[in-house]
């Protein structure tokens, strides 16, 4: 019986990080109506930044987040200005493939710079753990989980209580009306996209002591993020958080009982089933995902 509880706990911990990755993706989709297929590469970049700060300057991963998160925000602003804004009104095919090509570009830039070797951030406290009843809890994973949940909560508070947050929500609901009421929609787009990158950057910082990084790390993670975002309902932050935790637990069980290779198979199958039967997900707004069938 203990093994089930232990699996659930470790799934929940990793699910918190999945949620943080997915929240950025779903926020960008909700506001800009663009699926950023390069989202995973920003995760990889943040992990590489953390790795180099750790190895060159001996920065602790939790400390280096103070530097990495603003850097990722800046990178997001640059990307939005150069690639996303010019293609916002373009045909759908351009929107999809511009972020796909960006993903390919970043992946191979990292490959040229750093080769495909795996790099690991090995902290002194990586194996430290404590025991509650029958459960073993890793301090590192607990810390990463708490930080991820805190950041998600901070985002929710930002969206609810600040002017910019209200402007973002207004734009997500109806961009034309938002513009009519004096919201600077272009600025909202830029801030939202950069926020998405900063959030996935934070997830990268938190993941780096747990997983080794190479240029393909983000591409593997992003597929999980798609499953989560669709399951939670495209554009819904609460949905992405809930679905992230759920997928974390499902993955933890399926990789224990079915083996590491099959776990991917399981959640892709889940994904197809969700799309087939409930493409709005948990909290999605109807109409974004399905058209009238004729």
């Amino acid at each position: 019986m203990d093994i089930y509880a232990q699996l659930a706990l470790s799934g929940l911990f990793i699910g918190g990080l999945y949620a943080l990755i997915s929240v950025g993706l779903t926020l960008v989709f909700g506001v800009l109506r663009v699926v950023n297929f390069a989202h995973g590469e920003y995760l990889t970049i943040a992990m590489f930044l953390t790795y180099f700060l750790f190895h060159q300057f001996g920065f602790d991963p939790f400390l280096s987040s103070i530097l990495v998160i603003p850097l990722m925000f800046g990178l997001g602003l640059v990307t939005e200005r150069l690639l996303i804004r010019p293609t916002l009104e373009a045909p759908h095919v351009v929107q999809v493939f511009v972020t796909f090509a960006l993903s390919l570009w970043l992946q191979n830039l990292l490959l040229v710079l750093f080769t495909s070797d795996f790099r690991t951030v090995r902290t002194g406290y990586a194996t430290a753990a404590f025991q509650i009843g029958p459960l073993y809890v890793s301090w590192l994973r607990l810390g990463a989980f708490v930080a991820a949940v805190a950041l998600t909560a901070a985002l929710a508070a930002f969206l609810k209580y600040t002017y910019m947050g209200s402007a973002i929500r207004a734009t997500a609901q109806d961009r034309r009306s938002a513009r009519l009421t004096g919201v600077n929609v272009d600025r909202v787009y830029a801030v939202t996209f950069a926020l998405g990158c900063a959030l996935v950057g934070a997830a990268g910082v938190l993941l780096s002591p747990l997983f080794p990084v190479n240029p393909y790390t983000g591409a593997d993670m992003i597929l999980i993020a798609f499953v989560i975002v669709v399951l939670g309902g495209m554009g819904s932050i609460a949905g992405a958080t809930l679905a992230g935790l759920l997928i974390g637990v499902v993955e933890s069980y399926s990789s224990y009982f079915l083996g590491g290779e099959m776990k991917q198979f399981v959640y892709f199958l889940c994904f197809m089933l969700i799309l087939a039967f409930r493409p709005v997900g948990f909290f999605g707004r109807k109409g974004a995902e399905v058209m009238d069938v004729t």
Partner: protein
Amino acid sequence: MGKRAYEASAGLWRSVIGFAGLAALPLIFSDPFLLGLVTLSFLWAAASLAWNLSGGYAGQLSLGHSAFYGIGAYTSTVLFLKAGVSPLLGMWVGAAISAVAAVALGAITMRLKGSFFVMSTLAFGAVVHISANNLREFTGGASGLSIPLQPSLVNLVFASKLTFAYVALALVVTFFLVTRLIAGSKIGYSLVAFRENDSAARALGIRTLPLRIGVFALSAAMTSLCGTLHAQYYLYIDPDSVLSLNLSLNLALMAIVGGLGTAYGPIVGAIIVTTVYFAMQAFLGDQISGLTQLAYATIVIVVLVVVPSGLGPEIGRLLTGRLAWRR
């Protein structure tokens, strides 16, 4: 001669001259390296034409076409290795399986909008890729399958690489004609109307769901044939070479670089992309892995942002010396 008849015959002549030029390529570039470039350009052109039929005309941006390519490659190869069935026959079995899979997938995903459709096909491609890695008795898993080198027409293995170039070209010509035939028919116009504005098309009473699924299945079957040809050309297949996401992406990107939703676009795109690939490999070698892909991604981004309609129409305009606004 009326203007329309003139335009039609001019179009016909342009195609004939174009394909005559393509047919001359394998003879001009007889050096093995360059012949490889030409042959692969043809193979990619055929596969990209197949993708373009559904992705370009109907606007269903599938990133799961590698699954159909892989089904084609694996079906003919497994039938040949296990049961001695000629790939000439096996390729049609693969095409039939792909078409059935496409109808099943289409029935689920065709009602999904834009990015949702893209993601669902992405997941389908991944499921087939993982399955091929795990069904070891059939596919040999990650170590792949080799086809013995026994040249004969029945085995669809040729001693001379030149023959293969023309087999691939025959496929390109056939797929080009299929595309022209569909694009010029009522089906083609319905698909384009749906792609441009689905609610307007619906308001006009154009019913596209069966058409889109049908064209998707046709496109899958055609892609599958290219997969068989790939296996017969390399005489070796593994999941990463015939089922990867990168393959799906390439089929789409070649059509986009050349000109989406045009019959000649994928051919132009495949030739440009393959030439760039080979040139980069020849000049840079494999010393720095990733550099070729980096250059490729740069080209794609520039094309998407600067000339979203593709390079094919631009080149055409340059050749005929006409400007867009004069037409």
